[in-house]
């Protein structure tokens, strides 16, 4: 549905130029819910706006469906208004001088294709029904709550019947509870309509809940593309790993027998072996550490001491000292918190391996 090749964009700022996009290659399938995830300034919004046609890249190519909408080589730019997409903005961009109905209708009455009056009425009614706003059709836009505005924005984007829907942090202005609720609704609605979605967010939980696939971005690069569990379990770089939550880093050196000599002891891996003698970094998420009060005498087990245990509701958070290193661990809070000395088990399958230089 979307194909992006070698897309570059630089901005001239006060302190020199900033590379917002460097050589981005991306392929998004028809009907896919695709999320661009990254911290602010990572280039995700620039990429989205380039697809929308609101930003003009310096070089590269973008195709939507079978149409090339941007190509620096062919000196071709299709203006945004010709790309036939729907978009939900971070600010919702609800036109304050119009009613709910008119907000949804304006792209139909003033846009590229202008169906007849009856057809417009039907399409608007249908879109409002989809988001559950049909009772508010006559309400002036300034009288809407944030959640309602968000729904109108979605209805407006859907009313034009786009094959591609772009969403730029559409939930960031909602409060936490509403956000979760809306997330579920969006996912269901989009699946029902079969639209391709390109969605920008900086919230990894949101990304993982919604996405079929996620592209993690930083500093104008795509670090990794994949499904949620892929990215969580098999990050290809420490940055991606860190982006998806807390992680313990342990440095070490590969031994000749394939095991790793680390600062907390010798550990064994499942994955392919690094070259002997190379400095490496191992990552493991707090919930992957197994704690027990008594030793199991298994592989990858080291002794440690509980420094602190914090009860956070469903979970217990531990700080554990192992060979002079502090490690974070997380367990379900179904049992009493451990105290004193504990045994920490590093499951070989959960250890992520990176060359040391990667951090």
């Amino acid at each position, binding site marked *: 549905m979307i194909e992006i090749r070698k897309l570059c964009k630089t901005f001239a700022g006060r302190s020199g130029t900033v590379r917002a996009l460097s050589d981005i290659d991306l392929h998004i399938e028809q009907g896919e819910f695709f999320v661009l995830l990254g911290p602010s300034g990572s280039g995700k919004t620039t990429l989205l706006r380039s697809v929308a046609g*609101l930003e003009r890249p310096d070089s590269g190519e973008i195709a939507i469906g079978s*149409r*090339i909408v941007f190509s620096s080589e*062919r000196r071709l*730019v299709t*203006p945004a208004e010709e790309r036939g997409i729907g978009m939900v*903005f971070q600010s919702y961009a609800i*036109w304050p001088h119009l009613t709910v109905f008119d907000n949804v209708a304006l792209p139909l009455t003033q*846009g590229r294709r202008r169906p007849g009056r009856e057809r417009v009425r039907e399409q608007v009614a249908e879109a409002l029904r989809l988001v559950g706003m049909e009772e508010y059709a006559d309400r002036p836009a300034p009288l809407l709550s944030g959640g309602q505005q968000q729904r109108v924005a979605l209805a407006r984007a859907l009313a034009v019947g786009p094959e591609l829907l772009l969403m730029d942090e559409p939930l960031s202005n909602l409060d936490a509870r509403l956000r979760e609720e809306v997330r579920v609704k969006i996912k269901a609605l989009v699946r029902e309509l079969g639209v391709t979605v390109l969605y920008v967010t900086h919230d990894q939980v949101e990304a993982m809940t919604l996405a079929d696939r996620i592209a993690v971005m930083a500093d104008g690069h795509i670090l990794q593309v994949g499904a949620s569990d892929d990215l969580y379990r098999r990050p290809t770089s420490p940055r991606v790993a860190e982006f998806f939550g807390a992680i313990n880093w342990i440095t070490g050196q590969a031994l000749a027998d394939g095991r790793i000599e680390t600062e907390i002891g010798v550990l064994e891996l499942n994955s392919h072996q690094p070259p002997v003698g190379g400095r490496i970094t191992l990552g493991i998420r707090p919930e992957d550490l197994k704690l027990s009060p008594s030793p199991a005498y298994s592989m990858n087990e080291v002794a440690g001491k509980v420094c602190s245990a914090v009860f956070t509701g469903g979970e217990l958070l531990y700080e554990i000292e192992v060979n002079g290193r502090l490690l974070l661990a997380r367990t379900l809070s179904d049992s009493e918190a451990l105290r004193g000395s504990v045994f920490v088990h590093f499951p070989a399958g959960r250890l992520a391996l990176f060359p040391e230089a990667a951090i």
Partner: protein
Amino acid sequence: MSVFTSQTRDLNFEMWRAKSYRVSQRSILIIIALIPAAAIVGLLIIPIWVSVRAETDAGVAFSVGAYRALLSDPFSYRTLFNTAIFSAVATLTALSFGVPSAWIVERTTLPRKGLVFTLMTSGLLIPGFLSAMGWVFLLHPRIGLVNAALGLVVAADWARINIATPAGMGLVQGLGLAPLAFIMTAATFRSANPELEEAAAVHGIGGARSLFHVTLPLALPGILAAAIYVLTIGLAAFEVPAVIGLSNRVFTFSTYLYSQVHPQEGAPRYDLAAAFGVFVMILSAILSWLYFRVLREGHRFAVVTGRSYRPRQVELTRGGVRMAWGFLGFYLVIGQLLPLLTLVWSSLLRYFQLPSAAAFANLSLVNYRGLPWPYLIDGLKNTAFLMASVSTVVLALSLAISWIVVRSKARGRFLLDAIAFLPHAVPGIIFALSAAYVALFILRDYVPIYGTVFLLLSVYVLERTSFGTRMLNNAIAQIHPELEEAGQVMGISLFRRIGTILAPLLIPACINGWLWIALLTYRELTIASLLVTPDNVTLPMVIWGLWQSGSFTRAAAAAAMGLAFMLPFVFLYWYFSRRFAPEGLKT
């Protein structure tokens, strides 16, 4: 697999369509914006060209003769000296009324201050030459009302205020410019951070000490910027020097220019006028540069930005309220009301007399009856046409320019913005001089625009575009860009976006701006003085013509009619400006 490798005919068609679409809308907007910009630049180059151009019997030659003539004539230096005194006194007067008024309105708990704001703003709209006429009757050394009153106290000549001096004219001009100083410094006081004063208060610096050691130094860049701005205007002010100075042999820059283009006898000296104009353009450029520098310095002090807070207000005692109203009332009565009342009084007399039993016995409407009514109505029609058309065209052009400056990423948009600002910095009379020259000697065979109302329309529009773009730049910047982008992504073309999204959102700003421009157009005399012929006469020019031909009292009658015509617009402006007044100033 990839679409990039498939070269189909459809694709080429898409490409062609995409390109042609671009030409049709954004480019049109850019062309619309470039027309006034090109005209502004052109009109500023003309004086330079004219000043070095000399027509001899052998043909056209280029020489610095005009500059030599200008520099070797002591009269030029005298004029320059007069201009310096005039504009300095005008600036001082404007600030000494404007700044305290602004402080009172913005930083004290004075009740009903919104009224002051409204009255001050409309003070700007009273045509300066009408007030000047009133001032002649008030402060003339022999016939002035005030001087006659002073004469009752002290008989000696030194106790008379002579208005027919550069300083006297500066005083009158300054009273007229005080509202401008007020509006500009009010913004400064309004945006002052109260924490800085609170910090002073906590550390035991209060009252007057706080005012002089904290508040005023903080507002200084703003005040200085206002001073430079007022000075730039004073430098080239035409109305007051023309009404008071011309017949008393006191020339300033603008009346010098006027007398070179309209000499008593002989051919107009466009070259001399242009040479002087170039000199003043350089001066204005320096002042503008200073202005922006000071403004930037001012931002250094803006410790907290983007935060809205209510400035600390000084609690006024009963006595304080009385003093404040006394000061404001003094200005409003003396500076604005009295000259106009004098004007109305003199309009009822056959020739100007001080109020006396005999004078009261002589009051009549003969001046009103004797007005050149058909001509006056012509002037009124043209003025009404100009008020409507100038405001509308300015807003349309400014919308195009401001959209490009604020919204598009077109290269050179900052240059476009700077050019649109130029008419603010360069005296209007220079534009008029250039336009007169162009219309008379360059365009006459192609576009016979000289002597038509369209020539006035064009120059007025260029002159006011700077205001229009300043206003719309701000207004557009306050509208979230995503509102337009939403329309764009969903297929609404540029013109339709402007029409259905941007324009409706700009309406409050536009109504205000429209009325403001209309009222400024109504009072415009400076540009008209060089461009009006009998066929495109404006109301102010009818009044000015009567005044200039010595029919003072009849001019006063025409002026009174003009004020009556203007009043409904002023009330409209009041109504709308109150509706959209800055927060906290509504009454």
